[in-house]
């Protein structure tokens, strides 16, 4: 890993006295994010008792520390040397690959409320917008904000539109939306300023499932078009409607 110039520690800074943030870039870069996912996995596999959580993000990693069981007086140095050791490993072990996740999305019936506007801004037809969304190979860059909320990279560059000026206060759970180079799916009814292309009937997060989150960091994701009748059928099964 250390030999790849694109993936290098940019800064190591405290997030208070109970976490340390290791920053690798100040913008989205898929190569950097892939390195972050491998590094987070390598740190997690060590199962160090003083680490409570390892959070891979778009261009950084947070290491949350149980300061009650470590007597170190410099958490930043602790994490910096841990990261150095992990990056020094000949090959960062990747997590056992998971099969790519196929997410059914209904783009019709008003679910894709911003499709027309996206089409106008990109000069594409609505059908083209949908086709390009379906044709994008997504990867989970980060899961955060609320439980199970994925930030997906890999959106077709032709679909890059900025966030909306005024966020909408309540977007339904399952909303699939895009902005700039990313796509998100809302696990719960939350406010959102992204451009809505459709809705999935899947339940994104369920604490009672063996794997509570449908999306995990580094997962590969593809969307699959469904019609309203299929949406209703799946929603019934999932208990999301």
């Amino acid at each position, binding site marked *: 890993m250390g030999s790849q110039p694109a993936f290098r520690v940019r800064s190591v800074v405290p*997030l*208070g*006295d*109970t976490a340390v*943030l290791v920053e690798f870039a100040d913008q989205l870069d898929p190569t950097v994010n892939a390195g972050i996912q491998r590094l987070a996995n390598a740190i997690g596999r060590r199962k160090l008792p003083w680490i409570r959580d390892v959070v891979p993000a778009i261009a950084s990693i*947070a290491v949350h520390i149980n*300061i009650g069981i470590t007597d170190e007086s410099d958490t930043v140095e602790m994490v910096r040397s841990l990261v150095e050791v992990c990056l020094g490993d000949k090959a960062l072990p990747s997590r056992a690959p998971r099969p790519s996740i196929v997410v059914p999305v209904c783009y019709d019936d008003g679910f894709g409320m911003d499709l027309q506007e996206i089409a106008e801004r990109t000069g594409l037809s609505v059908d083209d917008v949908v086709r390009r969304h379906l044709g994008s190979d997504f990867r989970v860059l980060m899961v*955060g*904000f609320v439980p199970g909320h994925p930030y997906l990279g890999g959106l077709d560059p032709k679909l890059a539109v900025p966030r909306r000026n005024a966020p909408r206060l309540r977007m339904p759970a399952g909303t699939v939306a895009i902005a700039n180079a990313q796509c998100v799916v809302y696990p719960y009814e939350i406010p959102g300023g992204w451009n809505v292309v459709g809705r999935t009937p899947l339940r994104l997060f369920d604490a009672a499932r063996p794997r509570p989150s449908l999306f995990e960091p580094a997962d590969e994701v593809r969307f699959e078009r469904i019609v309203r009748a299929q949406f209703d059928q799946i929603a019934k099964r999932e208990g999301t409607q």
Partner: protein
Amino acid sequence: MSARPSTRHPPQVSVERAGVQTTIQDCGRFGYQHLGVVPAGAMDMESMLLANALVGNAPDTATLEMALQGPTLRFACEALIAVAGASYSIRAARGQTVNMMASNRPILLAAGTQVAFDHAPDGARAYLAVAGGFDVPSILGSRCTYVPAGFGGHAGRALKKGDQLALLPQASSLARTRFDSLRKRNSGVVDYASAVTTVRWSVRPSSLSEDEVTLVRFINGRHRALFTAQALQAFESSTYRISPDSNRMGYRMIGPRLERASTRDVLSEPTNLGTVQVPADGSPIVLMADHQTTGGYAKIAEVASADIPRLAQLRPGQQVRFVPCSLAQALALARAARIALATKTQALAWLYEA
């Protein structure tokens, strides 16, 4: 999203009045922040740990967190309870007998006692621990309630009137053995009529501030360079008031607007308990127990973990002043706070040793 209700044995605590925001809380849920699951847990961890120690429980036993106006509960069985944190007076009633009890001490309740908490003159929240603990399912390794996503605790939400809570099956026998152990050590046990028995001593948390302006220490946030020099100066030199729309997710601060020198967008990245982020309106928000795990607002400061319990005890309208400290100082403060608390909890553990 709903958690399975606990139906393993009959409930022993009836909720006769819910209170403003009463939730089951413990030490929090760790190991899932990479899936967007915040640890949550008690807002004032120090008072929660003390409440558990006061009844001889392990530190991570599930307690009830009450905020501002507390609940009214009826215990069907004998129980050993303690309340730590905000200074609620506790009204214990059984039949015609009514006793006013003080916080921060073990209290043995006879079966059938109604316990009411009203407003606390000092502090914002308190923790009710019961010997043995509340028996709700452990979800992702914790019994704490995470209301924004609707899981953990009792049905994933704050308590409602009419709720029935289960205690561990051995709660009554634990109450008896543990209180007997206090008697054996001759630790100032007082009997009141038939409803309640308590002790003459108390052990207080240190999270209640008596100052008009509470000092909150912080280490520099990583986006300080994005703010104007005036904003950085104003943050450290002004008195902020806690806004009424503060909650378990965050404390909004009312005070000088903090202007950005650069409006450069911040890439969404992990946050932490105590992160002070500044949205576009320029009013700082301190992230509290139920905060979002990642965010794209500029971080001006990070509150020292040792000062979170004191912040958690402040009510809307109360005043704070942010005071800078180094990472080493923040770690030293946390260590000192741990030792001070351990001194209290160990003394209590000895009282309950068989």
